[in-house]
């Protein structure tokens, strides 16, 4: 299943908030497509994925925003 999270225009508390909200409900194997304009989202999402053991499938600069696709490959419980 693909979950689309449009966090464009959000600085505070930031796209990572929207990502984690979606991750909480997602199942292993799902993909989360996160759209963000905050450049800090790239490093935030990369750090979170590394720590939580999830996989970034794509991180791409589109016109005026960043598209990130995260595959849910780990859930702690």
């Amino acid at each position: 299943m693909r979950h689309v999270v449009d966090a464009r225009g959000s600085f505070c508390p930031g796209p990572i908030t929207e990502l984690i909200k979606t991750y909480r409900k997602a199942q292993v194997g799902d993909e989360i497509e996160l759209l963000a304009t905050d450049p800090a989202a790239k490093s935030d999402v990369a750090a979170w994925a590394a720590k939580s053991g999830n996989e970034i499938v794509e991180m791409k600069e589109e016109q005026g925003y960043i598209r990130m696709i995260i595959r849910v490959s780990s859930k702690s419980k």
Partner: protein
Amino acid sequence: MNMTRIAIVGGGTGGTILANALSRKLGEEIREGLVEVVVFERSDSHVYQPGNIDIAFRGADPAGFRRPPSNLLRRGVKLVQKAVSSIDLDNRALKYNEGEKMDYDYLVAATGSVATPELVPGLAEASLNFHKTQEDSRKIWEALSRFKRGRIVILTALPHKCPPSPVEAVFLVDELMRKRGVRRDVEIVYASPYTRAYPAHGIADVVEPEMENRDITLRSLFNIDYVDPSARKVFSLEGEELQYDLLIAIPPHRGADVVINSGIGGEEGWIPTDRHTLNIKGYDDAYAIGDATDIPISKSGVVAHLEAITAAESIASQIEGTGRVYLYNGRINCPLEMGGKRAVFVSGTYTKQPERQPPSLTKYFMKRLFNRLYWTMLRGSLEPIFNAYLGSPYEVKHRG
């Protein structure tokens, strides 16, 4: 001529400011019976929620931070102290008081958010919090006053209102333990769901060195999954665990029951809202403001305030047929207290991030002053001062 009714569901910061702003703008129409402004608020006590910080971490008297809603509304605003049970956006009607129905011409949902520790297994049992009631906040003060040795964990769950509040709690716990002379025997840990101590980089850059200076441990990217109260351990979605002796949590929030029960905001109850017009998506006669919306902006009193001002302008414009549309620019301006009588202001808009700034005594006193001015602000008399210093919270466009 028919009367135009504006129904405001919720008499918190946003609902009260909006009602008072409308009563100023449409005073003549209200006096002539052409417009009616109705606020639904079932509580008999309007609580100044930032006061919970003072109750929890300074032992302040809760009575100083609450007043009856009827004392806060301008003449001409009708207050109905009953709960709204459902909102029917398609038929412009709401139900209240267990079955009574009221039709409206314009609706504003100012229904707020609800701190819900029950959403996380074990959290309600294991933790104290200052995001629900004054009584809950008082319990934190009592626990901290007794605490002499061990680890205090302050933890943030998403989503929640008032982004500065967790960090303020951390600094004020540190300050209190130092004042009590027990800081050497108390470990303070802040578990942040973000990659840093504060979601905005510029503010995190100020907060994190201060935490380090005060020997406060930061555990970043710790998103709570569940708590085991018997083992006194919190577990994160990222697979980590954290032992505690005292757990102070900012619980996850959800939207109001009336929003969820009316099928407006999905299972979490956040109302789909246009971030600029503040219309509930698909309805030009219905607005949502403050914590109730799904707009990706901080849930805070200042946002509720500025959205209320913007929505009031738009509704008055619709009624008067001026053709003007008021577009919220996402302005925020939230004080963040850092202990030691110093504070910063988290200021920004939809297009401008909060910037790094040195903490200052002046900003601390501005925050303290605002605690006193809050009740005056609700009536709208301070708007010219806010606008002069901070700029307008909206842009104006013409329809069509």
